[in-house]
């Protein structure tokens, strides 16, 4: 009964949206994203299917305008260097960070990366497309090295290695802190920046949401040092970030980025509808603009590269085992095997989960996205807010609707999920 309702809802949403195409972009799409402002604007408008939300309005008011707007921002320099343990000592001595050893993220020559449509015919497999391979390699560099933002609390934390463990920062054998770089901000000051890898490369695996990173704790420590109350920040817990500024305290799990290329929606509440790879590129581009205080914008080729790379995460996974009948009967209607076991959106009240994030006034759509289940056994805790500690707990609570699942079916489902 509940399931029938879910499926009906899902069908209604599906009929309203185009199939996601983030995983297979054409060279023409790259060229249009890079060169055609009107195309970028159209893509943004199509992606923001809830234009009434503040999240959408703040982008619609300034991106891809016919005259003026963020297109006219100066381009953010891509010169960065890893932030290391030695840099922390520099900061601890009260000295300024240097950028002498910083390198530009080099963009390969144009025809190579725009996939010149007049060039030789290519294999249909995007993995075999030389331009695609170039984009992805460049995107991997962007993911690791281009700072999405700098923050006062990050500079503070970076100077205090004794607190890094508490904040869940990881340091590699040569002293580099994962996800942190040195860069010159919009005002020319050399400071510490957080890259995509800072949040989305847990255990060093690119694309895995970092479950140890405790940004709430980091910010709370900084706030406390300045005599401010930060109880709410400390309550986020590891692996979770409150991405909105509304009064409601609703931290969400940092998601995995595997199979985002086949996802029809982005973010837990599905506030962004994917209408092509350009949707990803624009989401990242606008995220960088906001992260850099709206004073610089990233070089667009780096954003296309990042989108190409992110869309490729997880696609090398071996084929999934065949689902057991219990999965086909109870789960596949939402977790579509043809879409990496992910799917569209489900109304929050039809799920046995907390609805705060779905109802957030800034970016809540009333829905939650059906996430991909590939590799799910590595990703505990589960759900948009990390509320389910294990797969067993999730199924014991009768996900999705609360209806009990008979023990034998549960065991079969668990075995399947663990092999997925």
């Amino acid at each position, binding site marked *: 009964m509940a399931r029938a309702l879910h499926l009906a809802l899902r069908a209604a949403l599906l009929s309203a949206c185009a199939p996601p195409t983030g995983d297979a972009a054409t060279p023409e799409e790259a060229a249009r994203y890079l060169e055609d402002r009107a195309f970028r604007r159209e893509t943004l408008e199509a992606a923001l299917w809830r234009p009434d939300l503040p999240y959408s309005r*703040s982008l619609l008011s300034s991106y891809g305008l016919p005259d003026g707007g963020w297109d006219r921002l100066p381009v953010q320099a891509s010169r960065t260097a890893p932030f290391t343990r030695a840099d922390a000592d520099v900061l601890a001595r009260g000295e300024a960070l240097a950028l002498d050893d910083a390198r530009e993220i080099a963009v390969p020559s144009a025809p190579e990366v725009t996939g010149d449509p007049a060039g030789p015919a290519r294999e249909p497999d995007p993995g075999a497309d030389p331009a695609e391979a170039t984009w992805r390699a460049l995107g991997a560099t962007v993911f690791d090295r281009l700072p999405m933002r700098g923050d006062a609390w990050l500079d503070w934390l970076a100077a205090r290695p004794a607190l890094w463990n508490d904040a869940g920062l990881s340091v590699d054998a040569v002293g580099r802190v994962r996800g942190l770089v040195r860069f010159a901000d919009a005002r020319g000051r050399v400071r510490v920046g957080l890259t995509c890898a800072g949040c989305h490369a847990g255990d060093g695996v690119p694309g895995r949401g970092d479950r140890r990173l405790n940004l709430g704790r980091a910010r709370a420590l900084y706030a406390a040092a*300045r005599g401010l109350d930060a109880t709410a920040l400390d309550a986020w817990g590891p692996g979770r970030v409150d*991405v909105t*500024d509304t009064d409601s305290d609703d931290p969400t799990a940092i998601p995995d980025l595997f199979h985002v290329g086949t996802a029809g929606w982005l*973010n837990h509440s599905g506030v962004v509808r994917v209408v092509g790879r350009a949707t990803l590129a624009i989401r990242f581009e606008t995220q960088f603009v906001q992260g850099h205080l*709206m004073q610089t914008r990233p070089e667009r080729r780096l954003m296309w590269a990042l989108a190409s790379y992110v869309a490729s995460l997880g696609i090398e996974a071996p084929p999934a085992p065949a689902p057991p009948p219990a999965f086909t009967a109870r789960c596949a209607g939402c977790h579509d095997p043809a879409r990496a076991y992910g799917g569209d959106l489900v109304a929050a009240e039809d799920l046995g989960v907390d609805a705060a994030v779905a109802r957030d006034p800034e970016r809540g759509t009333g829905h939650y996205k059906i996430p991909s289940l590939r590799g799910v056994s590595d990703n505990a805790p589960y759900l948009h807010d990390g509320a389910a500690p294990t797969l067993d707990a999730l199924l014991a609570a009768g996900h999705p609707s609360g209806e009990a699942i008979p023990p034998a079916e549960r065991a079969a489902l668990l075995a399947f999920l663990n092999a997925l």
Partner: protein
Amino acid sequence: MKRLMTTLSLALLSALTPACIADPDDGGATADAGSGGTEAPVNGAALTLTFVSGHLGNYWDCPGEANGAGAAAGAPREAAGDAAGACPPGEECVSIINCEAAMVMLEVENETDGALSDFRIERIVLVNDDGTTEDLEGLGIVDAETQAPPAALPAGASRTLRVDFRGPARDPNDDGNRFLRLELRAGESAAGTLETPPLFSLPAVAT
């Protein structure tokens, strides 16, 4: 977006310029800036302003730095007084967690016949959803590239400037469609107005 090249009549505010400014694209019509003034247009004495970006700041952890919250010039700084909002442009300041002064970046084009310097904020008006307005305090203007006070701008040239100001105190659960009407002056009498698209507070975590 709304892009305005409205002329301003700011003459009475200046001892030096008893004239109002004509907009070449606007058939010489004038928009009264509320300061009174004569209607005699002076040819080419206009700044064309184009919106680039802007936000209303983030005063989450420094509400005292927002406009109209006891942060008027000369008022004592709060405990978190080295916040960005209180930080004069060009000075090195450390901001606290969610504390960033509001700003608008705009491209200014000198449509006059001579070089212009001494760029200054005449007025910043926040227009709320319901049409009510609020005057905001300007904090300064810098060249977006050099972060320094803007150098002289030759006739016909354009440059991107950043205008810092005290944003409104924010109700985080009610982000409306507020926008700014911003009036800049330069040299003796050149002036221009910009009406921005809707502006929002700066998100603390943008994802």
